């Protein structure tokens, strides 16, 4: 059986977990077994709808304390459930919680572990999964040699593949170990779309000349319903908050559309964004290396091009 760990927040299942479920259903089909989901904690989200991504059953350990991430506790609970359910593959989204939990679960299950998987496994002569390495500059094919496999899959690499199906929700009991951490404060930026979950990202670099010029970028992002990001020099100069920095030493993202404004496209920046499906580059320097990695390019002054693009999108929305 393929067991998929489901992450939820703010009474919603995370898109990355829906995608992991969909990937899990495909892995289960390859192996000729069922795909089932595991939900820890309490949520108002309609977890039976995980059926739409291919889950036949949703195992639910509805204990409030599991809503917070205590890696020692939650990984123990997940590993215990996986053993009880006889899972041969345990899947996570390669998001913040998945990155913290999956390796610990792998240890507890004595399972081989691959994180950042970007393809379905090949199951002839082994169990081979492709993952991104060198921060997106290459892929490696890894064979997992253990009977149980734990895999964390990259966000936005497989997509959602909805079907008509409702999963059966099964309440599951678990012995919850004593907490190992105490959460004393949670601060969230209100109304901002998390970068790693965004379908569209609009990003700015030094070409915008100063933080006071970010208005045109924010207007474009608002019109597209996009999250905003920036290059490393911009975050190092405190023009934008550190959590917006994408690149090799910042966040690695893979949106459907990445619009780079005034970013030259140094190799370290490309490593963070080159898994984006479509890349649009706006730069006044026709020699900017980013154009080589782009799908669409506009050689021109951002201060003219960006407002014109925002207006064109607005116009096209109105004519729909």
């Amino acid at each position, binding site marked *: 059986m393929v067991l998929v760990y489901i992450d939820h*927040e703010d009474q919603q299942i995370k898109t990355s977990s829906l995608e992991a479920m969909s990937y899990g259903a495909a892995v289960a089909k390859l192996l000729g077994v069922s795909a089932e989901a595991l939900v820890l904690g309490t949520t108002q989200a309609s977890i039976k709808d995980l059926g739409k991504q291919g889950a036949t059953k949703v195992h639910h350990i509805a204990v409030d304390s599991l809503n917070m991430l205590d*890696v*020692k506790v939650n*990984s123990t609970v997940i590993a215990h459930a996986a053993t009880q359910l006889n899972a041969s593959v345990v899947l996570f989204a390669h998001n*913040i919680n998945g*990155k*913290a939990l999956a*390796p*610990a679960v*792998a*240890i507890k299950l004595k399972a*081989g*572990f*691959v994180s*950042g998987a970007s393809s379905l496994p090949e199951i002839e002569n082994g169990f*081979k999964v492709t993952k991104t*390495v*060198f*921060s997106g*500059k*290459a*892929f*490696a*094919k*890894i*064979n*997992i*040699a253990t009977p149980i496999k734990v895999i964390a899959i990259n966000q936005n690499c497989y997509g959602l593949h909805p079907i008509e199906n409702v999963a059966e929700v099964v309440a599951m009991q678990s012995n919850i170990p004593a907490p*190992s*951490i105490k959460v004393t404060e*949670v601060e*969230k*930026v209100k109304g*901002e*779309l*998390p970068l*790693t979950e965004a379908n569209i990202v609009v990003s700015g670099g030094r070409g915008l000349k100063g933080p006071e010029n970010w208005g045109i970028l924010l207007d474009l992002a608002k019109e597209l319903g996009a999250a905003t990001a920036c290059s490393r020099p911009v975050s190092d100069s405190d023009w934008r908050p550190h959590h917006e920095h994408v690149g*090799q*030493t910042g966040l690695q993202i893979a949106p*459907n*559309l990445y619009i780079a404004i005034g970013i030259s496209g*140094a*190799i370290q920046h490309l490593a963070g964004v080159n898994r984006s*499906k*479509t890349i*649009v580059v706006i730069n006044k320097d026709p020699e900017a290396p980013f154009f*080589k990695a782009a*799908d*669409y*390019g*506009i*050689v021109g*002054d951002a201060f*003219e*091009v960006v407002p014109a*693009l925002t207006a*064109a*999108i607005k*116009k*096209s929305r109105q004519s729909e």
Partner: protein
Amino acid sequence: MKILVCISKTPDTTAKIAFTEGNTKLDENGIQWIINPYDEWYSLVRAIELKEKDPATTIHLVTVGNAEVEPIIRKALALGGDEAIRINVQSNDSFVVASQIAEVAKKGAYDLIFTGKETIDYNSASIGSMIAALLDLPFVSLANHFTIEGNTATIKREIEGGEETNEVILPVVVSCQKGMAEQRIPNMRGIMAARTKPLHVQEPIACNESTQVLDFELPPAKQGVKLVATDQMDELVRLLKEEAKVI
């Protein structure tokens, strides 16, 4: 207090990645090796800061690899740290690497174990979580702020769209990222001192690899950029809608 800082060797961030031997090996031609940036800038420097505040602190560095990793560990010692341990085995399997470090950690009875949030070569982000699981310790990932009082650590960590503050009783394993500390450059005195700091080489414990890297490939090259003139934004919107189907 005793701190263990895990150090990994990675290609420089500007390295152009290519492969040899039928795409089974990294082409090391022209590659500059560095300390994994997250290990150096954040976990090692934060450990050094803690020692500056409390000189009774001991910092040990640990790395898993063959003799080729020694220049990197000397470079780390030039920044700070009292001594280093190299476990003499080369492996790309995170279970093997974590098991070796966990063994060192168990014997050394450390109060704090720092890793970078991930290495920039294999990007698994797995070693810290695995060490914690092997030692049955608490683990806090993606820490961007760390203070300590008595035996309690207060750690801020990244969550999606914000941050969370955790309190943990030591010992704890922490993966470190931007915000923990500011990058430092080793000074001459540090570089001289590093030459004579103890570097212990230990043989690995027996441990089977649970995964093997079979081969590598480079991402497919882009088809070539389609240029759109600055006064053709309606056309760009059309392309994004109808051709790329992304808006």
